[in-house]
């Protein structure tokens, strides 16, 4: 950071005419980014709509829609399967996450504050890699059998496996929502119930859970939406047993010859509509009933003493949580070291060959390079767009540019809520052939990631921007700084935590992205996620696991770097 800034200021001193140029260039780039984002969304949306209303001959027709509705395997079957997954996973994950949140916040469970790390780990690992770890653990001849000498107690593939892996993967959301809710609740509400004569268990049932209801409902909706759009897990665990969801059916229709892009488009409408309805319900929920519990004294909670249950609870909770968090990682790590799959797990069968392949195999090296540049590029672009959009919406007076900013804000939000497969399909339809044949290039992946993840940046930057008191900027203007200088010298430095957050989150999401990537990547534009996914799909678990371990390492490093860069950011900004 220091070096380029130093160069810039040197250049500025040498050429007074250049004052403010880098800022102006960045601003211009960001505005171009916003325009491209809006244009691509409009084009993609239009092409997706058109594709679903086209006959094979080319004219307008309701035939694809009719076909999808009448042929069970196309729409109704996958829809039923998706719902069969989404409802139980939403409930299970909310119960499990909520219970763990209660243990962490309200009880004297040993090391309770470390539960977050344990719950976060299975979410940090991309879903399809968690699914592969499940297979490595529980398939015939898998790690479980090798360790315990008996057949695994659970199925490696199929419905139950998908439910388990998804619950594990998505438990983090309910955990975070309920923790925030519990910490915000006024402790006096529970204390008053104790004084009124309720037992600790009754307090939980009568006060804590009802107070947490908005968070629980929000969790159910959020997990439901994520299950509906999840592609990697059902693709690896469901497709082999013939269990298809909406996402895997779209993938099949769009990638398996004979291609049926019209049919895929109709399914994408449905999937997109579900995502938007859930989003709408969530916004209503959050906008409508906000519980008036925030007293600002979150620390002084009366703790529920587990008493003689403390150590049994600790063993139970930590046993399950640690097994769930670490077993997948250990399985991936172990399998990534194996020389040949099926020859046992002992050190005599170990090799670093799969890791060396990342440098020696041209394809994997390209994937590594692509992943790093795509993740960096999309993180930088999405963050610049986020700043442009947030500043336009929250700092400009009403008018044309502001209206454009509000539109971009909404579009980025919707694009983030849409399933990756829907975005990917729309981009294929818009950019394969025609006047801008980007399909097959890494540029289309960059566009997809910026489109999908700008919303993350916009949320984070806008939230921070709203915390910055207007007087801080007025003081800059009064002191003689132009608008652009106020932005550069006061607003951007104060936004630093949000900028770091945005860069880190977009980077991490881009590294992990598989659902749009599975449609858009091809030879030359592979990413590590794509390579790992393809290896797992082919049954090459050793190479897939090695690539996965490298990706997980990248993601963890980025998250730690973000924590470090965003430190000391609690200073008041109003």
């Amino acid at each position, binding site marked *: 950071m220091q070096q380029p800034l130093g160069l810039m200021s040197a250049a500025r001193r040498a050429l007074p005419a250049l004052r403010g140029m880098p800022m102006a260039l960045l601003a211009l780039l960001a505005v171009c980014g916003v325009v491209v984002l809006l244009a691509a969304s409009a084009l993609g949306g239009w092409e997706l709509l058109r594709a679903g209303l086209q006959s094979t001959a080319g004219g307008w027709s309701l035939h694809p829609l009719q076909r999808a509705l009448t042929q069970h395997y196309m729409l109704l079957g996958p829809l039923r399967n998706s719902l069969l997954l989404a409802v139980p996973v939403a409930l299970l994950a909310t119960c499990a996450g909520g219970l763990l949140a209660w243990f962490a916040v309200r009880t004297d469970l040993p090391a309770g504050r470390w539960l977050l790390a344990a719950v976060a780990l299975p979410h940090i690992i991309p879903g399809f890699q968690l699914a592969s770890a499940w297979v490595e653990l529980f398939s015939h001849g898998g790690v479980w059998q090798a360790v315990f000498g008996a057949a695994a107690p659970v199925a490696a593939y199929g419905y139950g496996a998908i439910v388990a892996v998804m619950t594990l993967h998505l438990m983090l959301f309910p955990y975070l929502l309920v923790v925030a809710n519990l910490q915000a609740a006024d402790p006096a509400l529970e204390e008053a119930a104790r004084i009124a004569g309720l037992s600790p268990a009754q307090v939980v049932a009568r006060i804590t859970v009802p107070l947490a209801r908005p968070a629980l409902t929000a969790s159910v909706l959020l997990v439901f939406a994520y299950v509906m759009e999840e592609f990697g897990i059902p693709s690896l665990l469901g497709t082999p047993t013939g269990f298809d969801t909406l996402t895997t059916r779209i993938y099949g229709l769009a990638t398996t010859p004979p291609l049926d892009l019209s049919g895929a488009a109709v399914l994408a409408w449905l999937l997109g509509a579900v995502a938007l309805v859930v989003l709408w319900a969530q916004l209503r929920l959050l906008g409508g009933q906000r519980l008036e519990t925030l007293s600002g004294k979150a620390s002084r909670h009366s703790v529920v003493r587990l008493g003689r249950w403390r150590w049994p609870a600790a063993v139970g909770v930590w046993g399950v949580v640690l097994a769930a968090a670490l077993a997948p990682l250990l399985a991936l790590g172990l399998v990534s070291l194996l020389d040949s799959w099926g020859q046992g797990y002992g050190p005599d069968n170990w090799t670093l060959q799969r890791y060396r392949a990342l440098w020696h195999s041209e394809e994997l090296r390209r994937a590594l390079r692509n992943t790093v540049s795509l993740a960096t590029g999309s993180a930088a672009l999405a963050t610049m767009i986020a700043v442009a959009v947030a500043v336009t919406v929250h700092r400009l007076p009403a008018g044309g540019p502001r209206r454009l900013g509000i539109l971009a804000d909404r579009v980025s939000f919707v694009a983030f809520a849409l399933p990756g497969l829907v975005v990917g399909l729309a981009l294929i339809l818009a950019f394969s052939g025609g006047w801008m044949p980007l399909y097959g290039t890494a540029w289309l992946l960059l566009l997809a990631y910026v489109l999908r993840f700008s919303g993350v940046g916009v949320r984070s930057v806008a939230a921070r921007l709203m915390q910055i008191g207007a007087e801080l900027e007025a003081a800059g203007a009064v002191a*003689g700084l132009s608008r652009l200088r106020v932005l550069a010298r006061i607003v951007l430095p104060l936004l630093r935590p949000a900028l770091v957050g945005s860069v880190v989150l977009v980077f991490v999401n881009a590294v992990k992205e598989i659902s749009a990537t599975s449609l858009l990547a091809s030879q030359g534009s592979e990413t590590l996620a794509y390579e790992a996914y393809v290896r797992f799909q082919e049954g090459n678990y050793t190479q897939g696991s090695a690539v996965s371990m490298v990706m997980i390492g990248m993601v963890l490093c980025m998250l730690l770097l973000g924590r470090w860069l965003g430190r000391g950011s609690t200073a008041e900004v109003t």
Partner: protein
Amino acid sequence: MTAITIDRLGKRYAGQPVLHELSLQVRAGELLTLLGASGSGKTTLLRILAGLERADAGSVRFGDTVVQDARVFLPPQRRGLGMVFQSYALWPHLDVAGNLALALREQGIGRGEITRRVDEALQTVGLAGMQRRAIHQLSGGQQQRVALARALVAQPRVLLMDEPLSNLDAGLRDELRDQIRALQQRLGMTTVFVTHDQTEALALSDRIALLHQGRLVALGTPESIYQQPPSAYVAQFLGKANVLRARWDGSALRIGSVVLPASVPDAVAAGQEVTVIVRPQNVCWADAAPADAAVIAAHVLQSHLLGAVREYRLAVPALDNDLTMTELSTQPLREGAQRIKLPQAALRVLPSPQTEGAADG
């Protein structure tokens, strides 16, 4: 030194007028206080002077430079201002020296010169050696001084202060008030100071401009505006005042059944209704007053010790009114039936009748 000429400024928010054709001249080098209740338009006027708001009508000149009229609008960064904000608005990502240096650096001033001026400004406000402190490590009073130093460091033509003392506790407020006054007099900088606190305004100002509902209702030195308020509203805003209705019979004032000798403005004709304002400290006990005034019977309803003075609430049936009275608390406490006098010099007579209802702000 720069005079500020404000000519017929008008401003509306969502159709509601906030400033009505307001005209005012701030003399070069003076400290003028904009005093008023919340909603009086004083902060809006200050923000228009700063260029943070744009007036709908009228003009503002700094010296000979028009900074705002129907055609011209000079943005804040080109007005050459220093401003102290109510929240101080210190940039939390910069340390003390960084806050002071930011604008200087942007002007392209050399490093040595910046250091010299920053040190000098900190010296001026009594914070020498605090250059490297982070903002959140400072106490409220220190933050206030840094804000002042930041406003002074660029040697502005005009200094604007928006309720700069309102976030401090009482003792510190008085101390800093006196320091600001001494500093302003030493630097001789044209200063506009916004406050809702009349004590602050009286203690600090060369002149006070009192605003009420977007209009200028009084302008003058603290002495003149306090002693000769132009209206009952002004009298009551600047401190406690008894407001009485009276009739001028050509030679004396008649209030209820009491006849008081008084001098009245020339414009007042015999038989006309007038308003009489009496400050509580000017009400006297009959046994301690000059001989010329009428003796009036009164009854002590309540008394409060306020520290240096004691305040009485008196029922005065002959005046059809209750009166507030204060005297030094070293005097003996009185109770029950008493007699009072209203000396001629204590009566401020205003020509048009003013009801107390006008003073509800």
